[in-house]
């Protein structure tokens, strides 16, 4: 059980690292939203699954309820994070920010 939890945590940290490197290195605001939206959702999903699995060591009612709340956080994050990213893209489009094209200076 501990091995599975550790592997899930390491996978989640790997996805978080990818998201952070993408936020730092992508050339444009629109392309930066891609790692920010996707990899953070996947990383928090994997890490929350690891914590929910770790909580089921001793099978009592309180631990099961805590794990269910973690699953609720997963559901909420996977609903809210794409919505937030969509809101930011919509703000950028309405403000008239031009997308980056090849050859232009990286911002």
């Amino acid at each position, binding site marked *: 059980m501990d091995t599975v939890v550790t592997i899930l945590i390491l996978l989640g940290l790997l996805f978080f690292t990818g998201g952070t490197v993408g936020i730092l290195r992508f050339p444009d605001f629109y392309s930066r939203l891609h790692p920010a939206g996707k990899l*953070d959702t996947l990383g928090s999903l994997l890490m929350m699954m690891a914590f929910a699995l770790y909580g089921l060591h001793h099978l009592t009612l309180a631990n099961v309820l805590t794990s269910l709340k*973690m699953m609720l956080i997963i559901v909420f994050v996977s609903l809210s994070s794409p919505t937030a990213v969509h809101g930011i893209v919509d703000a950028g489009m309405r403000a008239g920010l031009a997308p980056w094209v090849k050859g232009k200076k990286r911002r």
Partner: protein
Amino acid sequence: MDQVFLYSALYLGILMLLSLYRGAFGPTVLDRLIGVNAIGSKTVVMLILIGLLYQRVDMFVDISLAYALLNFVAVLAASKYFQKRKGLYEE
């Protein structure tokens, strides 16, 4: 198992500092918003890690859920506010 949680929490803290670069020096306001959103979604995980380290997960899971909600509402409100051309400079 506590060591794994401690070191992953430290690593998450370093990642949050790296995301703070985009929040502090982003060229436009929306770049800063991306950085703040990334920090928020890392904080949700980090609160659970803190709870596991202090053996109080049952309390910290509620704080984490409330923080996820707060982060979502804050990002949506800020992106609605910056839909006009406020503070979006282009060189």
